[in-house]
Structure formats: structure tokens, C-alpha cells
């Protein structure tokens, strides 16, 4: 993606040199291809010019929101992190999570058995909520990003429905709560420390690593660049 320098202020009506869509024409005094060089703040709607240099973080001049943050090698790095996250996810879900030992009795649990236990107690809504926020949403995010990023990495055209899928993943973002779950584990560990001996399993460690890897994956994603690749008009 190479942008030509934006020479004109917002209301300039000069045709743009890299006019990608000639069909979109003048509109309220704004040439619409000019709008490609503008960015509006999602929190206060203020318009900004995109700077020419590519390695900057752009903050809203009025409300301080982050408008854009350039990420170097976004596709490669996110793809690497996502692959690592998937491996850790599989580990987290296949090995015992915690074991509790009390007067000779040992009880082992895997990640999914807590959800199953809630279901058995009749708290169906709650078990579905935990299943969604801790297992399904992260899984969909990981597989979805893998599906979107792999063709881009190899320079192919974006996979079918990649744009809609990425939109869905963005909408899902607040509902993936693995890091909250991790804090829950720590609290539960201390809580039960009085009652019995708790033995953390492989799963806990891979889960803890997974949180950081997922955070890194999302931090290395550049939505602006990705949307340029996934443009439905192309």
C-alpha cells in the first residue's frame, strides 16, 4: 500500500492521482477518493488527515483516541503468533487443568469439565456463557485469522468471505475472556488453598502462555492494512 502525499485540505476538489474508483464522483464538494486520505475519530467524529510517513501512531487531536497505529510485518507476525496460539490452545484443552487432593482423594479436571459440571447442575445459560467466552470465541478468532491471513501471506487473493469473517472477529473481540478466566483460576487457587492441596496441571501453564500469545497476535494485527487487502470492491 503506497499512499501519495495528501496536498490538499478536506474541501479540495482536485482529482486524486491514485483514483482507484473513477465511478465514485464528486459529492458535497468532497471528492470521494480524497476521503481515502482522511480518517474520522470513532469516538468523537473529528476528521484528520492521514500523515505521509508510515511508522506513526496517530492520536485524535480532540479526544485522544488512537486513530491508527502502524504495525510492521503485520501479516507474518500475526500469522506466527496465531499458529503458536492454536498449539497452546490444543494443549490447554487436552491436558488436566487442576487436580485437587484432599485426604487421599484426587480429583482431576480438564478445562471443559467445569462447563459440563455447570450444565449438569442445570445452569445451562451460565455454562454456555463460559463455553462461549473461554473456548469458542477464542477458537473462532484463531481459526478465522488463520483462514484470513494464510492466503495473504502467500500473496494470493483473499479467501472467500474473508472480509465478513474479519468483521465478525472484530465484533467478537470483547467476548473473548481468557485473561479474565486466568485471574479466575488464580483466585480459585488461593480460595481452595485452605481446603485442600491443589496441583496445577500442564494446561494451566499453557493457558497462561496462550493469553500472552493471543494478546501479541492481536497487537500485531493492523486492521487498516488488513482492510486494504480485504476490500470487497476488489
Amino acid at each position, binding site marked *: 500500500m503506497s499512499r501519495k502525499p495528501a496536498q490538499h485540505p478536506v474541501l479540495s476538489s482536485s482529482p486524486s492521482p491514485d483514483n482507484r474508483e473513477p465511478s465514485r464522483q464528486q459529492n458535497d464538494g468532497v471528492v470521494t477518493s480524497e476521503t481515502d486520505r482522511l480518517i474520522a475519530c470513532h469516538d468523537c467524529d473529528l476528521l484528520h488527515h492521514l500523515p505521509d510517513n508510515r511508522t506513526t501512531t496517530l492520536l485524535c487531536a480532540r479526544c485522544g483516541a488512537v486513530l491508527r497505529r502502524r504495525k510492521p510485518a503485520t501479516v507474518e507476525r500475526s500469522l506466527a503468533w496465531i499458529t503458536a496460539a492454536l498449539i497452546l490452545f490444543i494443549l490447554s484443552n487436552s491436558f488436566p487443568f487442576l487436580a485437587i487432593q484432599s*485426604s487421599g482423594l484426587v480429583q482431576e479436571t480438564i478445562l471443559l469439565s467445569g462447563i459440563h459440571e455447570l450444565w449438569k447442575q442445570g445452569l445451562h445459560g451460565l455454562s454456555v456463557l463460559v463455553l462461549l467466552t473461554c473456548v469458542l470465541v477464542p477458537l473462532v478468532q484463531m481459526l478465522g485469522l488463520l483462514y484470513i491471513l494464510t492466503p495473504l501471506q502467500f500473496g494470493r487473493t483473499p479467501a472467500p468471505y474473508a472480509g465478513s469473517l474479519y468483521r465478525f472477529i472484530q465484533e467478537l473481540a*470483547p467476548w473473548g475472556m481468557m485473561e479474565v478466566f486466568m*485471574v479466575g*483460576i488464580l483466585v480459585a487457587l488461593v*480460595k481452595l488453598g485452605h481446603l485442600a492441596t491443589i496441583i496445577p496441571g500442564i494446561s494451566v501453564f499453557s493457558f497462561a502462555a496462550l493469553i500472552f500469545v493471543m494478546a501479541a497476535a492481536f497487537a500485531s494485527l493492523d486492521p487498516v492494512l488488513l482492510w486494504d487487502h480485504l*476490500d470487497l470492491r476488489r
Partner: protein
Amino acid sequence: MNNKLTTALQLGLINCHDCRQLVPVQQTKTRPNCPRCGARLHQRKPDSLTRTWALVLTAMILIIPANLLPITVTTTLGTKQADTILSGVIYFMQTGSWEIAAVIFIASIFVPFAKLCILIFLLLTVRFRSQWRPRDRTSLYRLTELVGRWSMVDIYVVTILVALVKLGAIADIEAGPAAVYFAAVVVTTMFAANSFDPRLIWDVLEEEV
């Protein structure tokens, strides 16, 4: 920099909520979706204030049983003990694990109440067209959006305890009815924060000019 205070609304542009593409309003009359990502376009989130009020009021009702009913029922050697969120916090304070008490108090009591207060405050200031410190109010909004999910901690603690403590007669923990109400509070406040449009805070300033 005389165009410093130009908003997308004033120029007749819509900022796509999903991909940040700017689209002229006139174009949306024939096609209401974003040409780049296909998301439905709105100048402001539709019925933002009404929806947020509805969700905030729902959460305010749900937060009452969430705090009054027991969240866990512990059976230890035949004796049953029902704990509400607050009694759990007090128990941990008394037994010396004040860190746990602090985590649960902040995540389960302070954050949900603070979040509801902030949302009501934002709704009222927008409703009465206040021009008071819009930047700080926007920061408050961002804070509620960011922090809301952490209230789920208590739900996860209950999940883990319920799954783990199955030692028959020695100890057994069951989730109480408050767990459902509390989870509902967290979900509705997250939706409430999501349906509020912070740009409404700023719209008043432009209308005055």
C-alpha cells in the same frame, strides 16, 4: 488549521464502524452497506440513548438479586453454607487473604456499580446537552468499555470451584442462583456500553457553533 474542527458528520460522511472507511451519506441512500467491508452504515449508532437506557435499567434490576442471593452453596462435612458476593468478600477479609477480597470486591461489586453510574452519568449529560469536559467524559466511556469484561472473574471462579470441588461428603460446592443474575448483569452492561455512542458527547459542541 481552520478545518481542525470538521467532523465527518458536517461533511456528510459516515465513518464505517467496522473498517473505518469514510462513505458519503448520499451513497448510502442507494446502498446502506459499506462498500469496503459490507457493514451496515449509520451516522450515529441507531437509537443509541434508548437502547443504552433500556440495557442500563435491566442491569440495575438484575444487580439486586445478584447481590442478595447466594452465589455459591458450600457443603462441608454435612453443613451447608450459602455465600453471597459480599459475604464472600467479608469472609476473605477476615481470614487474612485480603488480596482475594480486594480482587473480588473490585471485580464483582465496585466495577459493575461504577460502570452503571458512569453510563447513567453519560446518558444524562448527553440528554441535557451538557458541554462539560467532553474529553474526560469520552475517557470515562473508554474506561467502561475496557473494564466491563473483568467483572466475569467471579463467574469463572464459581465455575472452577464447582468443577473442582467434588469430594462427596467432605466438601461440595454448587453455584447459587445469584451466579446467573450476576452473569446477566455483566452481559447487559457490556451490551449497554457497546450501544452507547461517544460521538453524541461531542455533537452538542458542533451544533453551538
